[in-house]
């Protein structure tokens, strides 16, 4: 059988397993007052949609950080904002400020599950397919089997589509970074990994290998010539990526300081 039909079948199977898992319950279902990760994600949609950016990470009268305060970097916040815009079109009650706390219904569950599903489909799954196809000196069967094994990994499926989280986005971006580096597209790889890092600070676990690999590449090319150019380019790319993500927050230095401190605390103590 041709490799594209085999891969299509693999992807379809992976999607079916994901959606059937999402038929089940989610974290904190029917458990007031705190509920769980599902309510956290819904709350972030509420916060990002209704409040101005300067209030997203701060304890204000409208934003109680003790009730699922935003503890991921801005890209998660932007993703929540995008989902909130779509939620508003379907049913504004889902993200109404304050009144939507603990909102649970079948249509809302369907919406939330769809957001995870779409994120998975757009970021993580294509990365896995490209990765498997780019494996060298492996037969088609082995490539498809690798894809099947990776896509059917139960841990990610259960956490993302069951418990309810968006790990596939950050992991997907990190994998795109790996792919880009394997093709010697260092700048694109850096951008991809920066996106991963700005989505979930948990990706810091993968940052050291990326850093050392790129630095080592610069050294290999010779720090007096091409290596230095590459180092400057990569540094510039990383700084620009971070700047783009954090730009809306850079209204004043005091804000940045106020964000950076609790942020680093959250990084150390958050469950990830």
């Amino acid at each position, binding site marked *: *059988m*041709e490799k594209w*039909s*085999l891969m*299509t*079948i693999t992807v*379809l*199977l992976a*999607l*079916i*397993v994901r*959606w*059937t*898992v999402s*038929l*089940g319950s989610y974290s904190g279902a029917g458990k007031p007052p705190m509920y769980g990760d599902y309510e956290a994600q819904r709350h972030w949609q509420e916060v990002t949609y209704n409040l101005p950016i300067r209030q997203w990470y701060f304890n204000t009268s409208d934003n109680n950080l003790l009730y699922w305060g935003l503890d991921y970097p801005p890209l998660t916040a932007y993703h929540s904002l995008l989902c909130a815009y779509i939620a508003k079109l379907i049913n504004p009650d889902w993200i109404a400020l304050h009144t939507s706390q603990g909102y649970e219904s*079948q*249509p809302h569950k*369907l919406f939330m599950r769809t957001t995870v*599903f779409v994120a998975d489909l757009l970021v993580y799954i294509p990365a896995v397919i490209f990765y498997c196809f780019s494996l060298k000196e492996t037969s088609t*069967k082995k490539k498809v089997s690798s894809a099947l094994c990776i896509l059917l990994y139960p841990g990610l499926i259960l956490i993302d589509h069951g418990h309810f989280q968006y790990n596939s986005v950050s992991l997907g971006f990190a994998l795109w970074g790996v792919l880009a580096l394997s093709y010697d597209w260092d700048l694109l790889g850096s951008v991809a990994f920066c996106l991963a890092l700005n989505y979930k600070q948990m990706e810091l676990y993968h940052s050291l290998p990326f850093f050392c690999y790129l630095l080592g590449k610069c050294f290999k090319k010779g720090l007096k010539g091409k290596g230095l150019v590459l180092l400057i380019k990569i540094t510039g790319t990383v700084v620009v990526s971070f700047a783009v993500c954090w730009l809306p927050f850079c209204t004043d230095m005091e804000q940045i300081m106020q964000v950076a401190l609790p942020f680093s605390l959250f990084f150390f103590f958050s469950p990830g």
Partner: protein
Amino acid sequence: SWFRALALGVSFLKCLLIPAYYSTDFEVHRNWLAITHNLPLSQWYYEATSEWTLDYPPFFAWFEYALSHVAKYFDPKMLVIENLNYTSRATVFFQRFSVIFTDILFIYAVRECCRCVNGKRAAKDILEKPTFILAVLLLWNFGLLIVDHIHFQYNGFLFGLMLLSVARLCQKRYLEGAFLFAVLLHFKHIYIYVAPAYGIYLLRSYCFTANNADGSVKWRSFSLLHVTLLGLIVCLVSALSLGPFIVLGQLPQIISRLFPFKRGLCHAYWAPNFWALYNAMDKALTIFGLKCNLLDPTKIPKASMTGGLVQEFQHTVLPSVTPLATLICTFISILPSVFCLWFKPQGPRGFLQCLVLCALSSFMFGWHVHEKAILLAILPLSLLSVQRAKDAGIYLILTTTGHFSLFPLLFTPAELPIKILLMLLFTVYSFSSLKSLFRRERPLLNWLETIYLVQLVPLEIFCEMVFPLTPWKRHFPFVPLLLTSVYCALGITYAWLKLYVSVLTERISVRQKAE
């Protein structure tokens, strides 16, 4: 070991489907558990507290009785007859798991059928072996998965019995095959659609033990012993099943429960058979007649204009159809295939062809046919599809349209991605595997057939996504069902005719060769 992987994989998928939507059939079976558990035999077919009365033959009632003794360990409250629509988590888990568990018989039957498929095209790659492809087409059949494990029915083990009896007949173990089919008939009487194929084949190939040189029946080889044995088997099974009820004098009640002819020509959703086309033609002619003022609007019964969903309706322009008419049509339509089986039996393959044609013809012309009955034709046809390219082409058309016609069974939003993804999975697999199996022969489908099948995609988008957002939804809610039914009826009719022509022309050419 690949077989085990396929069987386990699909079983795990079935487990994942446990929390999915289930239809009223779930309550039907819960009610039957309660009835058989609590009431004595004499009241099983009279109990009517719930609207879902027992309308399957006695063996199925005994099956529910056996299940009920396991059910009491899960949740005894589900066995109370008055607990209508009782759906505790334990009940759902038990019922779902009973379907998954009884599918073991289906898995065993598929294994036996795979043994019957000849491995002449011995391919090195496991994915290209006919046995592997057949196993996937049967074990992962889309229709069976969604009807049994989402909608909720027990077709798995019943088809297991049927496929097992087919396998036994292919292995020339005639008595076992006959016994299994007799048992099957007393589990679910819908299999009577294919009884003529069994009857004629057993008579021709088992009761007459030899053929003449030109292939025609050798009348002298009639074996009284074989006929007696067959008769004994059928009588014994029937006695075991209906015996107690005949003694109680309840046979007419059972017959009225099993064959409720009071229901209309078509189900609420028209099964995509000949009568769907007939109804559509009637509606079209009515509208045309009204527009051209050939018909008097006051004389037209209201139901037929707004309906499509009303169970009993009279036709306006074309003559109304009675149960007797459908019986005659069905009988006439199965005659050619049965004659073929008698005059030129080609062994097990000929029997399978006749079986599929009987199932399809009964589907086309039967009274109050359910769209799920298309599975009776699809599953046996899978066995033929991995052996000949022509059958593979017909199989692809029948299976894609047949499975698509099952879509209206799952109408909840949460199940929409499941049915689309599963349908895509099965369709992509069936097309690519059969194409690669027969890649040395000409293409399986011509351009017209391909266009027809591709048009299913816009049809689905229109019915599920576009139509609900239009203002017509309130006034004509039946339009998507009507469109689906009529469009699929075209495909299924075409597949039926194509299969018939292929079987008849094959026989004629064989006879010419013999002469």
